[in-house]
């Protein structure tokens, strides 16, 4: 059982250590900013003209600080954070007090998960297939053409790309809605109509992410693939008169997929962080937009709640890779 002692336990320890450090950083950094959640709240309320008596503001500030649990030293806040996190309580949102953070996340997370899961998987699959084909037949003309296309596609600034998609498919050829996650009046229930509507709203954001994401996967896959095609063991298998399909699957794709699977596991971990810019461009409901609001409102608890999800997601993804990779690639040992 030396595997457990020598590899698994230390690796798990590292896993928790990483989460611990991540959470600590996310706790400290917002508190170093000049943002004061109480002030931001008072400003949001008064900015638009709601009249607050100057005398009342002072008292309000004090009472809000108490309610928000921002009284006391940073260290005691930190201790109480862990006390809460251990029992799975993220506390109330400060900007939407007293709505619990988990509830806010619960509203937004399904949108994010739905969108990101599908786009991450699809861009991975399409990118790898295209990249694989282009890498395998790297000398063919259309392989070069598709490579050039991807090369130019990938670096287009995402925001601009998304905006162009929106202009083209939302305005010039108005086949997709330009904002939101649902049509006016839609009640979420299980019917084909509802699913079709949800899909219609998700297509543009998804498309923008799939296209650019795909280009990234394509490029790495093509690179890996064209390297593997030149590997000696592929040449050798060919010399041995193996069938092309056998070579393609057992010798090229199987080996090329290894780094890509790692990449997929980590990207899947990242989806908990949401897609801030996508959600902003397409006005799509989700966790990224929520995080942006939280940061700007100095909503410490909400920031913590959302980033905690993404930290857990990525850390687990990385752990997954470390634990499973040796099963796929015998060259790597647990160490």
């Amino acid at each position, binding site marked *: 059982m030396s595997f457990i002692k020598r590899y698994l336990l*230390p690796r798990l320890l*590292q896993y928790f*250590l*990483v*989460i611990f*450090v*991540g959470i600590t*950083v*996310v706790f400290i*950094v*917002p508190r*170093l*900013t*000049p*943002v004061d959640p109480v002030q931001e709240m008072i400003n949001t309320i008064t900015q638009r003209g709601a009249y607050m008596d100057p005398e009342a503001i002072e008292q309000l500030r004090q009472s809000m600080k108490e309610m928000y649990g921002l009284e006391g030293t940073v260290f005691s806040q930190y201790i109480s954070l862990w006390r809460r996190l251990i029992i799975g309580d993220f506390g109330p949102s400060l900007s939407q007090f007293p709505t619990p953070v988990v509830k806010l996340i619960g509203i937004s997370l399904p949108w994010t998960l739905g969108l990101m899961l599908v786009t991450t998987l699809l861009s991975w699959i399409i990118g790898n297939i295209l990249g694989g084909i282009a890498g395998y037949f790297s000398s063919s003309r259309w392989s070069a053409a598709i490579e050039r296309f991807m*090369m*130019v596609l*990938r*670096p*287009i*600034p*995402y*925001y*601009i790309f998304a*905006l162009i998609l929106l*202009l083209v498919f939302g305005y010039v050829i108005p086949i997709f809605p330009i904002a939101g996650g649902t049509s006016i009046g839609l009640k979420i229930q299980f019917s084909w109509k509802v699913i079709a509507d949800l899909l219609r709203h998700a297509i543009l954001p998804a498309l923008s992410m799939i296209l650019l994401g795909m280009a990234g996967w394509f*490029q790495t896959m093509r*690179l890996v693939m064209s390297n593997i095609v*030149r590997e000696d063991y592929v040449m050798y298998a060919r010399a041995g008169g193996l069938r092309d399909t056998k070579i393609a699957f057992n010798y090229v794709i199987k080996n090329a997929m290894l780094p890509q699977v790692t990449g997929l596991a980590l990207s899947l971990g990242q989806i908990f*962080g949401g897609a*801030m*810019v996508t959600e*902003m461009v397409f006005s799509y409901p989700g966790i990224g937009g929520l*995080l*942006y609001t939280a*940061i700007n409102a100095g909503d410490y608890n909400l*920031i913590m709640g959302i*980033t905690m999800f*993404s*930290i857990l997601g*990525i*850390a687990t993804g*990385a752990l997954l890779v470390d634990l499973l990779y040796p099963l796929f690639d015998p*060259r*790597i040992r647990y*160490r």
Partner: protein
Amino acid sequence: MAVLRELLRDGKFTFAFTVMSILIILAILSFFSPYDMSIWNVVPRDMPPSAEYILGTNSKGQDVFWEMTVAIKNSLIMAVIAAFFSRLIAIAVGLLAGFKGGMTDRTLMSINDSFIVLPVLPILILLGAILKERLNMIVLGLILAIFGWAWDARLIRSQTLSLREREFTNTAMLSGQKVYELIFKEYLPFVIPIVSATAINNMFWAVGMEVTMAILGLSNLTIPTLGTMMHWAISYQAMLLGYWWWIATPVVVSVLLFVSLYLLSVSVSQYLDPRTRIQRIGTAKVVK
């Protein structure tokens, strides 16, 4: 120079090198700009490209061409700083962790993984709020360097691990070679291809991050960069009002920049890859 001449045999490299040279020349041109880019209303607004204003003018009353030169300079400086410093950290951590193993490895990888799991964009936004007006291109470059090394340190570490397995390490160790000598003489040559390829990827990432932050309005908007140019163009509705020259300029420049960086990365790593290197040297001898 010989290396360059050899690289220039590659059509991809030639293209990328040409584009990059043009961009660098443009960046240098920025020092001869007739306008101070922090001053608005120095030229008529919203003029399409003409002989007088090669790339037209924007709604702030600035010449887009000269704005672009400054933007290229600033974005490049930022990207190079980010790439350079993150490489330093990545090499140090990767080699050390891979070579030493054990506790050192575990500690370093814990730190490394902590950086990997941290959500970069939110933290950048928060850091931007802390640094406020001190957030110039150099500082931004350094910040991005702090967040841009972790992945590559892991790569370098695993490369070092596999090098450690090779026989020459044992031979070297047994023959009493000093550790740093071993690392610098024997390992670094294998690590350099990763470093150069990832350096270019890192610049790619840094410029992308800057663009994202600027579009969100969170970088220093008074400094022209590719990102802030897009920010101003978007917020003045250049796209909808048909001032295509204003929005297209930074987009095209950044695509060109990225494409040339990508091609550079591909051809340089091909050049440096020990395996293709042997082939290439083999043929090079033949070709001579």
